[in-house]
């Protein structure tokens, strides 16, 4: 039997990461520069390199899984289509009226995100449906016809439709799509009851608009990609990573490109999930720290949590509320403005703030020597001896320790009257604390205890800071996987073909019949099953997860409870019991017993089988010799610098135990093991760091 190969491709803003794997795990990684003008060209180069170096037959590649930042970038850079919005008459401004709130109370110059459709391209369509789905005013088809013809002959390239209460009664939106298909067949149309069938006209319209906005860009790109892959002789189908961690075929992705929004970060979470499933640690906190932000995500029972609330293009210090809301199923993660490039400064209180503004990659930290003049986290890490100035990015970049020292002195140490090393240690501590605070809130809000979750660290800066973050969170251990620099691409290969579907409803548990719930569930299952079939998953392989989101009537936030597969005689009281239990776990106390409970959303995940893949290397191709040197590294618990052994990651064998203080280097990152901690190389070549028993 011939080998079966799969390739994961993660097109990031700067680099395109690729990973080739067989059924047992990854074989080879590649990294090329992203080609912004046509990202498919960079992918082609990377694929060529991978195929050449691995000497495998392109014909043996059965599947390419692909994720991209294309959608995010198109929205942030406002490079999408000229898009019109059709809204219920009187409500075309919902996307501009927005949430009516200043997300920053004290900044008089605060800005709000600009809607993707300007007001002159938003239209009042005569129609009205009530909250219960009853029709007040029928759709004025002649208006839509007229408008459609005018749009077709204008510069408008794409259309979004969002009517009030369409998630309850989508008839008018569907009718509008039909009319437009007839009078303006070349205009792509996205309707809100398809894209984001949920309560809340602002969020639903914003999501639908974003989907329509990127339709063309994504369609063009995917077609180009398909062409290039075929030209390389790879027969395998291309699957697209969704922000929910599921996969879709190109055809499906073409209709719902907005669901690709956060595919890269989802890949990282999937890698963490694959590790969790394969290594007996089903619950993890995935921690990805890069140059500008850190992302954290809870993995429960080997699966990343799924949420709905995304924001794209935050215009103000990553503040929630400063971006455009996008409601699509997505891996539920918290993003913190803390990365290697985060800038440290002394504020008006004589205290230090780190981030959220970042020196980015250009000019980057002062130690890059590219003109960065503000002290950053990387500068602090370098001064502390955690980074090797001659081995950054595997030696491809030299770091200037003197420059780092000088900016820390000028901007922090001298202002506080402390030594440069103390300032650097303080910055290191504060950035760790900032990430831990955000992580703690995120984890606890989901009813999970951070003390039981090992931290799964990756990204360029992740392993440098992981132990500090874990200490603040009280995590039991830190796990640093092998190949941490290209983990998203690897994570893609661990994803099942899957769709998450969600629908708003209002079902009073006290008076509901099972059929009320069942009808919705079936509808979603049919839809999900259909999408899976389109993606080539045989119906026998399809499995469903059913969840009800419930709350006390009148309350805002809902709590998730699993739904039974079929009707049980006492389903109501069971569901109520499960709800009360989950509520207590989340909030630490029960709700008011006199208040009735309702189901406000039903959520179904339809998935194909998860690929069995280990995320550990099967064939060791690294040949770098061990070079266990030493250098001075700073640890406050030692009172300053101590001689610290330096290990080459690639040379470490399973079972090796590295007592702290120690530093473990690999090209993309560096693990810092403080005193009183110990790193152990696992059988899968991951590093597991925990506190030394005392």
């Amino acid at each position, binding site marked *: 039997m011939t080998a079966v190969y799969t390739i994961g491709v993660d097109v990031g803003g700067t680099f395109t990461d690729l990973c080739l794997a067989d059924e047992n795990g990854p074989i080879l990684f590649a990294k090329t520069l992203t080609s912004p003008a046509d990202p498919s060209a960079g992918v082609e180069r990377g694929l060529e390199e991978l195929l050449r170096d691995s000497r495998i037959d392109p014909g043996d590649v059965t599947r390419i899984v692909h994720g991209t930042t294309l959608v995010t970038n198109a929205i942030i850079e406002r490079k999408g289509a000229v898009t019109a919005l059709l809204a219920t008459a*009187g409500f075309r401004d919902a996307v501009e*009226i927005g949430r*009516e709130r200043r997300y920053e109370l004290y900044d*008089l110059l605060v800005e709000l995100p600009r809607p993707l459709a300007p007001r002159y391209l938003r239209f009042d369509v005569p129609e009205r449906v*009530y909250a219960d789905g009853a029709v007040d005013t029928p759709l004025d088809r002649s208006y839509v016809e007229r408008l459609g013809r005018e749009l077709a002959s204008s510069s408008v390239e794409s259309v979004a439709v969002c009517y*009030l209460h369409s998630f309850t009664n989508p008839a008018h939106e569907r009718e509008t799509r039909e009319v437009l298909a007839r009078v303006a067949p070349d205009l792509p149309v996205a309707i809100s009851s398809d894209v984001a069938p949920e309560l809340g006209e602002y969020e639903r319209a914003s999501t639908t608009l974003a989907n329509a906005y990127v339709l063309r860009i994504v369609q063009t790109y995917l077609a180009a990609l398909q062409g290039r892959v075929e030209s390389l002789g790879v027969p395998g189908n291309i699957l697209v990573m969704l922000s929910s961690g599921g996969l879709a075929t190109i055809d499906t992705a073409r209709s719902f490109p907005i669901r690709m929004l956060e595919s890269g970060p989802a890949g990282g979470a999937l890698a963490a999930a694959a590790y969790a499933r394969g290594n007996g640690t089903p619950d993890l906190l995935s921690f990805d720290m890069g140059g500008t932000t850190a992302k954290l995500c809870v993995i429960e029972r080997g699966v990343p949590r799924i949420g709905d609330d995304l924001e794209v293009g935050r215009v103000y210090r990553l503040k929630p509320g400063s971006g455009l809301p996008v409601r699509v199923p997505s891996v539920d993660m918290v993003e913190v403005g803390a990365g290697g490039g985060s800038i440290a400064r002394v504020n008006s209180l004589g205290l230090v703030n780190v981030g959220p503004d970042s020196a980015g990659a250009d000019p980057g930290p002062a130690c890059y020597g590219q003109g960065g003049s503000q002290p950053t986290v990387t500068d602090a890490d370098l001064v502390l001896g955690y980074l090797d100035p001659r081995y950054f990015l595997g030696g491809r970049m030299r770091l200037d320790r003197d420059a780092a020292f000088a900016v820390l002195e000028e901007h922090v140490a001298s202002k506080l009257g402390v030594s440069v090393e103390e300032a650097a240690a303080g910055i290191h501590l504060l950035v760790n604390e900032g990430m831990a605070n955000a992580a703690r809130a995120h984890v606890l809000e989901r009813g999970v205890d951070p003390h039981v979750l090992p931290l799964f660290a990756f990204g360029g800066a992740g392993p440098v800071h992981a132990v500090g973050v874990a200490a603040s969170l009280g995590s039991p251990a830190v796990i640093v996987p092998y190949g941490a620099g290209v983990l998203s691409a690897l994570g893609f290969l661990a994803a099942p073909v899957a769709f998450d579907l969600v629908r708003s409803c209002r079902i009073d548990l006290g008076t509901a019949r099972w059929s009320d719930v069942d009808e919705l569930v079936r509808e979603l299952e049919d839809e999900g099953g259909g999408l899976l079939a389109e993606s080539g998953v045989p119906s026998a392989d399809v499995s469903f997860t059913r969840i009800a989101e419930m709350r006390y009537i009148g309350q805002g936030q809902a709590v998730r409870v699993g739904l039974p597969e079929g009707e049980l005689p006492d389903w109501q009281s069971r569901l109520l019991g499960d709800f009360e239990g989950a509520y207590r776990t989340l909030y630490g106390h029960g709700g008011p017993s*006199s208040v009735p409970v309702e189901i406000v959303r039903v959520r179904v995940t339809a998935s194909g089988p998860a690929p069995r893949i280990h995320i550990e290397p099967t064939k060791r191709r690294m040949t770098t010799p061990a070079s266990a040197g030493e250098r001075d590294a700073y640890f406050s618990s030692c009172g300053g610098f101590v001689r610290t052994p330096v290990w080459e990651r690639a040379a470490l064998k399973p079972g090796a135990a590295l007592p702290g203080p120690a530093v473990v280097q690999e090209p993309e990152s560096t693990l810092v093991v403080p005193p009183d901690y110990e790193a152990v190389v696992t059988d899968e070549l991951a590093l597991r760091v925990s506190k030394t028993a005392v």
Partner: protein
Amino acid sequence: MATDNGNLVKLDPFFVEVIGNRLFAAANEQQATLIRTAFSTVVRDNEDLACGVFTSTARMIAQSVTGTPGHINPMATGVKHFLSVFPPESLAPGDVLVTNDPWMTSGQLNDFTVVTPIFHRGRLVAYFANTCHLPDVGGRLLSGEAFEIYEEGLRIPIMKLFSKGEPNTVLLDIIRRNVRTPDETVGDLYAQSACNALGGQRLQELLEEFRLEEIDGVAHELLARTEAAMRAAIRAIPDGTYEAETWADGFDEAVKIHAAVTIDDDEAVVDFSGSSRQSDRGINVVLNYTAGYTSFAFKALIAPDVPHNDGSFQPITVTAPAGSILNCEEPAAVAGRHLVGHFIPGVIFAALAPVVARAVAGGADPVWVVTWNGGQASGKRRTFTFSSFHVGGMGARATKDGLSTTGFPTGVAGVPTEVVESVTPLVQDYRELRPDSCGAGTFRGGLGQRVAFRTRGGRPWSVAASIDRTVFAPPGVEGGREGAVGFMRFVDGSALATKRRVNLHPDDVVEFGLPGGAGYGDPYLRDPLAVRDDVASGYISLEAAREEYVVVIVYTGAPDALVRLPEQFEIQWEETERLRAARVSEVNVSRRNRDRVVNQEGGVMSELQDERHEILVHAVDAFNAGDLDEYLKLYHPDITFYGYTPEPMGLSKVRGYYDAVFQAFPNLRSTIDDEFWSDDRVVGRFQMRGRQEREYMGVPPAGRDIDVTTISIFHWQGRQVIERWSVSDTFGLLRQLGVALPGAS
């Protein structure tokens, strides 16, 4: 992993920052829990709430990140009242305190403050508190029409809501029987208690982790640093007393709000004397609430990055005469207090405008709180009560347009239409931006909105609208135009009373127009392309473009077209320039703001005049900075200066003259209020303000403030002034310095 954090050196700046951030994070978690478990839409969608953590002596250390100014500071001061009723020795773990007394907290019975003492190793170490607006508290529906507090609902003195973990069932029963929304009101009280407990738990974990016995030491360090930063920000404002006033619609008669802001080194006193007497209807403001919005205004204006905590409150004193509208006395009715209180930041910005530049033009100010009540055809209950919040436009900023439909100064927001319609029989016929509501300006105000309500209930219903800015328009800044006033009426245009409950017929339709923000800077200096885009987007009409902005635009597309793109709106450049030039020469005033002169089209100011204007402005800046050398560069070496001395002065005498002036009035500041340019001459009207610290013209210093007008003619040669004629109000100056003048009375 056990932490190493216990090894941190206490009170080093990093330790203070770490603990401060942890407490801040705890307050944010507290708020997140409150929003997620609250029942009333007012709490969770409007975010009409505030959360915070306090020291053992009730000083607020940190507050959650959103919230609304009307709650934050009143809650901060309110917790001290709890302590005087329940001293620490009377409290035990599991106790939770509550009140809605307006004079103790945030000035309205709907606002419940819940305070939870937190214990660590048997000792009371801190309090967590939150305030939020509950949907109903009995009495009249929320409106301004009560005569006395007793009509406005149930008033609960400071008492225990939970005692050692056991709910006060007597109190809860009384509340249930007295409010229209027993489940929501009581549910929210539970949510308020639970979120405090969660905050307390975080604090206890923090104390364990850092092996601390208490939090006061590090908290006091943080508060001291905050106070110092706030004092530094105040010190940057020139000393003096700055006054402004504004008018609110009031209930039956207009209400005046007058503020005198006195800056004395690093302290500020804001005195609201001269404001109206308290009203006999429910629009009165308790001093706590007045102080809350005052403190918000200061922070936003001069120190947005300084944390809002008890330290930042210290340097600012707020006073208002007892019995006045901003410091009302019992039994005043107060339910509509925001209708007056929300004007406070605008008045303070206006008062400080001469000395603090980052101002905002007038906006819609008070959030509109509209309470609906009525029958419904179906559903569990036969009636519904619902408060909808509505916000108008924010005033333009010095460098940006104002924000449309965004709450300011309040932090609360409206509720989505789909939510309103799912939880009530109410239907909104439209909710859209209100064209032409934005005041014109170089930067225009934000737009208000239009909303129409009807009911599907098929039964009688009622509305009580606590709204304002329907009479007095938001004022513009530096030539910016007023924003549009708001309105509330039947959709057929007939009048509808505000601030009181009005019974409605099932078929009635009620329409609101929310006020728009005012403009900043002269409208005819707005970029015509920006005006064109505003027209294309329907923010302003073609008529407004022509009348207000003097930009002539013609629509060139098909008359019945639905799709009208910006390029189909053509600017008639020649006519626009001609009309703008005429407008400019009519006024023939170049204002101080350089952008406005430089950008000016129409050619009235020559390039050289523009340059000279800049030089003059620069010289005044140097004068205000006390930089005499730089100021004197204005004058030609051969200057002849007439007017101040019997003989005209040459340059060295001019230097001597100003040197003496600067000695006597070290903080002297001058503004140019008018410039009239003609060829090589400009006539300027200046206003000088300062305080006498040394002898001047034989008058001994008595610390008196002066405010004197000077009118001068400058004759330019090249880029310097060769001759100057000046007349000052010397009589007024001497009088202000306390010199007894013959015949003066």
